[in-house]
């Protein structure tokens, strides 16, 4: 009985404490850049969730600290499931990051769940290219993903590499092409192809019996090992990830005649973040000209900006760029993904 009474008391007090804690006001966010900087200096550091590795981390740390005197702590998160977990945690009141790179398909859910806050990005950072700023104010893009054909150089001759996406449907690639089941490459093509051409392609792709894979860098690793011959549609940065660990890996990339682009890194400030001002400065820095220079190490530099690695590569490939931008990212991308996945025969989601 004594134990029950103690347990009950603990529950009551714990519940009261949590209720009180939930009513404590969130950190103040500055309205001008000067205010943001002043508040950020009090915060000192920023917790970031994204998928960087290697040299990119050092370069960004150096540049960010040089500009604002602030540091950041990165937690590696990869794939849609980790961003979905961050969303679920935030909804349940657990906000562990200040700024998160939100996956394309999840952006509408983050907004709907009210776990991120809109920011006047254009006002605070007028030098940032407007194409990188979400019209609704929730996201600022720092990285643009470009999708390529990644292949093993020991098993696939350069002359045999598909030149177009339709070349991937050639029966000679039956059971040889690895396809990532999250269709970002193909939702990237959707704005240029339209629904009819897209779905026709995907039904034929399914009929060609590809190897379905559940992760992108793992797929690239298996291509490097020689287990898969090639993949039609992996982000270029997965190739870089493999080469970073093993420079001798027999893996190469090629851009088809139509090159899909997606907003690869869209940062949002979490509602209830402990360091929101430092987070705003961090995201703004990444979208700035100086921050963008670091993206060459991550394989997501902006192909629309002259002088970047991406710009040089696509110019050399002479590919037609297909980019849906902010208008397509989010709900339209989600709808396209559902139709593609259904054409592939997987559960299509809602």
């Amino acid at each position: 009985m004594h134990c029950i009474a103690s347990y009950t008391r603990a529950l009551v007090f714990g519940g009261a404490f949590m209720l009180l804690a939930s009513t404590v006001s969130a950190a103040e966010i500055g309205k001008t850049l000067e205010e943001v900087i002043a508040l950020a200096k009090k915060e000192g550091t920023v917790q970031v969730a994204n998928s960087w590795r290697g040299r990119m981390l050092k370069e960004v740390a150096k540049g960010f600290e040089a500009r604002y005197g602030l540091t950041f702590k990165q937690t590696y998160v990869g794939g849609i499931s980790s961003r979905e977990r961050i969303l679920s945690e935030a909804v349940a009141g657990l906000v562990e990051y200040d700024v998160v790179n939100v996956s394309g398909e999840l952006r509408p859910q983050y907004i709907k769940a009210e776990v991120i806050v809109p920011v006047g990005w254009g006002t605070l950072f007028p030098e940032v290219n407007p194409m990188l700023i979400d019209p609704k104010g929730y996201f600022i893009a720092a990285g643009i993903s470009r999708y390529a054909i990644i292949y093993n150089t020991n098993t696939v001759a350069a002359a045999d590499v598909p030149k177009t996406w339709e070349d991937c449907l050639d029966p000679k690639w039956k059971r040889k092409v690895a396809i990532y089941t999250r269709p970002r490459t193909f939702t990237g093509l959707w704005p240029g192809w339209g629904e009819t051409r897209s779905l026709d392609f995907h039904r034929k792709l399914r009929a060609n019996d590809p190897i379905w894979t559940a992760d992108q860098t793992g797929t690239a690793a298996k291509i490097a090992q020689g287990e898969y011959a090639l993949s039609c549609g992996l982000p270029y940065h997965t190739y870089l990830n493999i080469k970073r660990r093993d420079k001798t890996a027999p893996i190469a990339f090629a851009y088809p005649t139509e090159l899909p682009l997606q907003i690869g890194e869209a940062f949002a400030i979490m509602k209830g973040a402990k360091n929101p001002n430092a987070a705003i400065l961090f995201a703004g820095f990444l979208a700035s000209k100086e921050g963008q220079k670091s993206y060459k190490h991550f394989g997501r530099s902006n192909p629309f900006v002259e002088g970047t690695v991406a710009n040089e590569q696509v110019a050399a490939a002479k590919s037609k760029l297909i980019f849906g931008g902010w208008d397509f990212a989010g709900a339209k991308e989600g709808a396209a993904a559902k139709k593609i996945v259904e054409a592939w025969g997987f559960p299509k989601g809602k």
Partner: protein
Amino acid sequence: MGMGSLTVARGMRMSWDVLRHHALVALVLVTLVAVIMIPVARLLINSFLEGHPAIPEGWTLKNYTTAFSMPLFYEALVNTLGLASVGTAITVVIAVLFAFLIERTDMPCRNLAWTLILIPMAIPGVLFALGWAQLLSPKTGALNVVLRDFLALFGVSMTEGPINIYSIGGLIFLDGVRGVTTVFLMVVGAFRMMDPSLEEAARVSKAGAIATFFHVTLPALSPAILAAAMYSFISSMESFEAPLAVGLPANIFVLSTLIYFTTRIQAPLDYGLAAVFGVSYMLLMVFLLIWYRRAVRVSERFSTVTGKGFRPRVISIGRWRWAALAMFMGYFLLAVVAPFCVLLWTSLLPGYRAPSIEAMGMISLANYVEIFETDRVLQVIWNTLVLMFVSATVTMILAFMASWVIVRAPVRGRGLLDSLMFVPHAIPGIVIALALIMAFLTPPLRYTGLYGSMVVLVLGLVVAYISFGTRLMNGAIMQIQKELEQAAYVSGAGTAKTLFQITLPLLFPAFAAGWVWVAVHALRAFSIPLMLSSKNTEVFAVLLWEFWENGTASLASGLGVLLILALIPLTLLMRRFITQMSGQQGGA
């Protein structure tokens, strides 16, 4: 008047005892209902909702119509049943054969074999699958490379294979070999305790050893074998790690991976649909479990295994002794040595490569250095140890209390509690995780702020292992004489004092054996941590899978090697407790 006062006092005392017992039963029932039934109820509710569990978009039946009109669902169902059936058949044949050879024959090194057969439990299912994926990947698998070179000597030229682990056959192989230890542990006691007079009668009638085995020994032990086979079948039905690691590249879905795919991989994610898969899966498993319990009760009537202290007769198998030992070593090679060696090999390279002189030149400990330089590793190790310790302790204390109520408490509701304790066994780990996600993302549990915390992880593992704990403690409590507790009551001790100061110490071997079993399984747990971990509660399994998914098989392999080395001593500790509990010294 004195007698009247005494009677009244005694009556009041008895009423107070009954009240306390009822309060204890109520407390245990309420706790277990909350832990088990609330998440299950939430899963059922969410199967009728659209959208994210935390931001539902309205009631719908579309989840059910979509699921039941989806060919992939039926394909996954057939794969699950087929894999479990054939895998179980293989498991039972191997395990029964080894139980016979180790307990009843003069096979050499029987004591060593008894210990070695436990070692596969030290290799988590996901590592077993990843190891064999590296051995038998069709083009680059180490074993396939060797086999192709061997076949080339005979003029057979192949560009891939000859064995492909990414197939239904590969999954059956993994499942069949994995389950041998558990089934062995379930039947070996029956072989030891079998009344030898039946076999002696057969030998007197001039029946040979093989005829005796097939016509006397096996039929006599069929209740125990059947119970073990059905348990193994149910466990195989929940299989997740091998289908995840090896099934998806072959486009082979089972129910568990269909749920994982729907909530973690596909874009966009769909919790409502996953909830329908989870409910269907759970109902199927409940049906199987009811069938299992009925079958076990019926078969126990025909048991020829007694509690009397028979010394089993050792059967001489002559020159087949060495063949038997070779067969056992072959199994050990497949179950332990081969996967461990390839994981070790990969952990010493920058990336997986088939064995070659060139690859040997790249061997280094760089991956291990990188693992320990990873910021999160110390946190991950700490989280894993906390999860292991807390899960085992909470599970066994709850199991002890529940079992005491089931076996001893003179109150109504014991039968209900006993049945309730068996329900979690019917809920696959992936469904437990999904149910807890939904429970803690929706009111009222959402407001506890516990989502993503270690509490939810512990809850998941407690639900997963409570059935085992209560089965173990039920049997152990039955062995304790009631008079010991009654003596404590007569001396003035209360229920709680009696339970924890008299009964529990007497049950220590069983409690400790259960604790170690749960701890080992918590350390190896995969599906529940994979679904429920957050940034601050990552455990070994989650970090390992992240390394694998991100193409750093070498880091995943290194972490796997470290985990296996940590699990081996714990597994051998289990052997000690099993020996102590059964009073046997292993085969001579």
